[in-house]
């Protein structure tokens, strides 16, 4: 007779001393782990619930401005520095890690309209309602020294937007026309006008650095190539300038930093539109959810998401290819949000609003900040994956999508939906009672573009 009976030596399974960690022998045999799917589903459900519990996006409020914050600028080389300009012409430099103002300067009389940090990070430019462009040193002046701009350029008209070239000493302003300036000269090296009365924003393409996009008040978005020799010409051939005219005015334009042929513009008609520069006939995506004019938009440095600021007192985060937002931020005290920036480490969002405050938000509301222990990180990754895996289950989707909204916005959203449904219903009825093909189906994307000029 040959016999063997299971006999485990406890020494192999129990830790030797109390100082050791517990032994955890594993066996991955699927038959020992029944209900895999159901258990994973339960874990995913719990993870989703916990995410909603821990969603506390608001980090800090930076107060100190004495008027509404009109523009924000990210520092190009330092993560912790933020510049803000207010409606009374004051510019403040903030240290974000200490959450305090490190420098204040009276830059302009009237509004500070635009602000941009030079690519090297040593100086910054501001424009204001007093028709001046000023260049300032980034360093705080020493004791006894006066705050003096490095250069001051007096323009002919009021400037409304400003952006600096990515690599060269060239910057662009917009106002009644779009001007390209050399840093060394006091007059623009080139001006573009298209019979348009004014431009609201101008922005350099981050990759194809000679390209410029701007939003004009005649509802058009205009793209230029700076290298083109012939300025001031309405219709020229090819890439010199392209123009999309939409149903309503766009306020701001932001290029996708990773796929720089895409740009997103914030429109007055409550929507945002993402365009492919090469194909302007219709937008790639129409991003809806805001219930009032969208004032500003900024991309995450990953290029996967962007954040928008709206007149409806909310901030929304959209995935670049989704029609609806994944997140909405609001507080009781925050008024119309005028400017928004996504920090360069893609973790934070900064918003400047009407009631003189700058707010610091987390980009992922439930994310834990700071250094994570390896086990913590592993658990977070695991639950993230589970949430992804089961995201389309109705229960999980319902919980993940649920957001609390202020009453006014909630009701406005409802009202807008009713209006939209009514319009659609009417269109359907008209189509039903007219000759087939006489009332064609116009998709949401096509609706908002009036024409494209080349």
């Amino acid at each position: 007779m040959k016999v063997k009976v299971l006999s485990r030596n406890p020494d192999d399974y129990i830790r030797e001393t109390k100082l050791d960690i517990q032994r955890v022998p594993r066996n991955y045999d699927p038959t020992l782990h029944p209900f895999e799917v159901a258990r994973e589903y339960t874990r995913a459900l719990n993870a989703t619930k916990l995410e909603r519990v821990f969603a506390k996006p608001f980090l800090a409020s930076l107060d100190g401005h004495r008027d509404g914050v009109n523009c924000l600028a990210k520092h190009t080389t330092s993560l912790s520095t933020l510049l803000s300009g207010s409606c009374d012409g004051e510019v403040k430099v903030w240290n974000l890690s200490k959450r305090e103002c490190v420098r204040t300067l009276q830059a302009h009389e009237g509004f500070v309209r635009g602000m941009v940090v030079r690519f090297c990070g040593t100086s910054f430019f501001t424009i204001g309602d007093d028709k001046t462009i000023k260049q300032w040193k980034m360093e705080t002046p020493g004791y006894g020294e006066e705050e003096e701009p490095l250069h001051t350029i007096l323009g002919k008209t009021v400037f409304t937007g400003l952006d600096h070239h990515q690599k060269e000493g060239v910057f662009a302003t917009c106002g009644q026309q779009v001007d390209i300036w050399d840093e060394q000269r006091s007059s623009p090296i080139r001006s573009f006008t298209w019979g348009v009365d004014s431009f609201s924003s101008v922005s350099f393409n981050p990759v194809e650095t000679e390209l410029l996009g701007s939003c004009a008040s005649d509802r058009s978005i205009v793209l230029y190539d700076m290298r083109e020799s012939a300025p001031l010409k309405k219709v020229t051939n090819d890439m010199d300038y392209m123009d999309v005219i939409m149903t309503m005015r766009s306020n701001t334009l932001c290029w996708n930093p990773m796929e720089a042929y895409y740009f997103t513009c914030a429109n007055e008609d409550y929507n945002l539109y993402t365009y492919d520069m090469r194909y302007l006939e219709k937008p790639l995506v129409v991003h809806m959810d805001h219930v009032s004019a969208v004032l500003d938009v900024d991309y995450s440095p990953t290029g996967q998401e962007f954040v928008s600021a709206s007149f409806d007192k909310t901030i929304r985060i959209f995935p670049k290819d989704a029609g609806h937002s994944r997140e909405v931020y609001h507080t009781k005290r925050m008024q119309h949000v005028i400017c928004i920036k996504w920090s360069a480490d893609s973790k934070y969002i900064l918003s400047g609003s009407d009631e003189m405050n700058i707010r610091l938000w987390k980009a992922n509301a439930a994310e834990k900040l700071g250094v994570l222990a390896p086990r913590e990180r592993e658990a977070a990754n695991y639950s993230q994956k589970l949430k992804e895996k089961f995201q389309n289950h109705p229960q999980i989707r319902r919980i993940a999508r649920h957001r609390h909204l202020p009453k006014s916005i909630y009701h406005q959203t409802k009202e807008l939906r009713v209006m939209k449904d009514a319009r659609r219903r009417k269109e359907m009825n008209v189509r039903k009672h007219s000759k087939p093909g006489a009332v064609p189906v116009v998709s949401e994307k096509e609706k908002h573009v009036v024409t494209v000029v080349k």
Partner: protein
Amino acid sequence: MITLLILSEQAPSRYWQELQQEKDEAKDAGAGEGNKEPTTEEAEESKTPKQKKRKFKEKQDQNQDKKCISGKSDPFPGKARIPEDRLQKFKRKEKIKKPPHQHYKLRTMIARSEEASEMAQKQAARFDLLLPEEAGFLEGDEGEDTCLVSQEDIANAVDITSGAKHFNLKLSQFGPYRIDYSKTGRHLVIGGRKGHVACIDWQSKHLMCEINVMESVNDVKWLHSESMYAVAQKKWLYVYDSNGIELHCIRKFNDVLRMQFLPYHFLLATASATSFLQYLDVSVGKEVVAINTKTGRLDVMCQNPQNAIIHLGHPNGTVTLWSPNQKEALVKMLCHQGAVRSVAVEKNGTYMVTSGMDKKLKVYDIRAFKPLKSYFLPAGASCLSLSQRGLLSAATGDIVQVYRDVWSTPVTKPYMAHRVRGTVWGLHFCPFEDVLGVGHQDGFTSMLVPGAGEPNFDALDANPFRSAKQRQEWEVKALLEKIQPELISLDPTELGHVDRATFEQKHEDRVKALGFDPLAKVKFIPKFKKKGRSSAGRVEKRKKQVAHEDQRDIIRKAMEDKRKTEEERKNKEQKKTLLSSQKSALDRFKK
């Protein structure tokens, strides 16, 4: 000279070289026979030639890289092979059959997830080699029958700790006994018909508690951990803790005869004499559902550990399957001519074994609901129990018989047999041990059954060696991932399937709201294309209509200029000749 000699000598052959040779030969032979088990590498070789080429190249590179300092190449290049059966063990799902026109994003997503699951499968299969324990076995000598080997012989033959696992508890006063092992297999609860209930840490023989409930006891069952157990008494269901303190008396559950605990759902399912099947959620203490089965007294019950379906046996020979989500039986199977005496379901949820008053023992494939085998036992089996590794124990009167492989091969004689002192009333294999607990008229007997238990446990699931702290942590985790009773269904993977019906319904609603189908195929607009004439360059050329139009002016101008200059030159020459033809006054002086 000497060095030359040494160089020309062959290096002494190593054991692996021989092995490799043999392997190659074996491979050749196997290829000839064509019955060899395919290994993964061979499976890989059956891929497309391009992939094969790349693999080969990689392999070569590896070989070059892995040359030892001594200059010899690695005798076992590449990763070790994984046997196919091991891979099969960890296989979760068949690969998705790809639809013809896939969206590119979906295609990459599917490819990635399949890659990940394949990697997980391979890693798990590799890890399987490292498992520390091996299953027990009992083999007779030539002519020796294993069913004749007595328990004493086995206990004497094995080591002392294992030998101590065979013991008898003589409790003749309050019998017969029902028994239950906890999920980890460390703890045992026995309940005597006449009211005696005891909890024992049976390996150390430490008595945790012993009480007499002063009432008849129908069944005992551990709840999720060894700190609580349920006792079905004459009238109501009671819950006691491991010190014997009565925690609850649940009056909603009356006349309970049998109980089953679903560990991942925290549900206690009870079958009563009043034909009610009731579910108690032990984590919140609420009754989930009470189903009137309308089939009379329910005293045969078991659970399918794979999908948490309750199987009930009835006096009319049927076995019914129940879930808490349906008031009717999911399935009714007529299994026996007479009443069903006992039911057991295998760990994987593939096979069900039933015994009936017709003295038959039947094996069913529970996935297809088909009978596989039918055996005749002269005395008929009153109790059945299946071990983790598929051993079947059947009690006929006071004899406990253990069978091996009842579903695959026709069995003629038992693997083991043992006579206990009284009629068997409770029979249970101990998880993760080679032990079968038998509760009978005269107490309790612990039998050694080599090869019954799963040798390697998963400590995150059920750890027999866990400390109190570990148990607490496990309890929290287990409660957090308690599966809701709504998710119990015949197919436990149903939750992972695509819900097409709902999608279609949603799509219909959407089309209705929009007035058109947003997913409809765009109408095909034919492109004007001719052979070789539609390239971009040609089209551009054709658009210009007149070739070199811009250059034509220049050419025309140039031609004009050329013509003019030519004309001028000619005029000049003519004038010259004219002038030369006229005779001047001075010509007369020429010679």
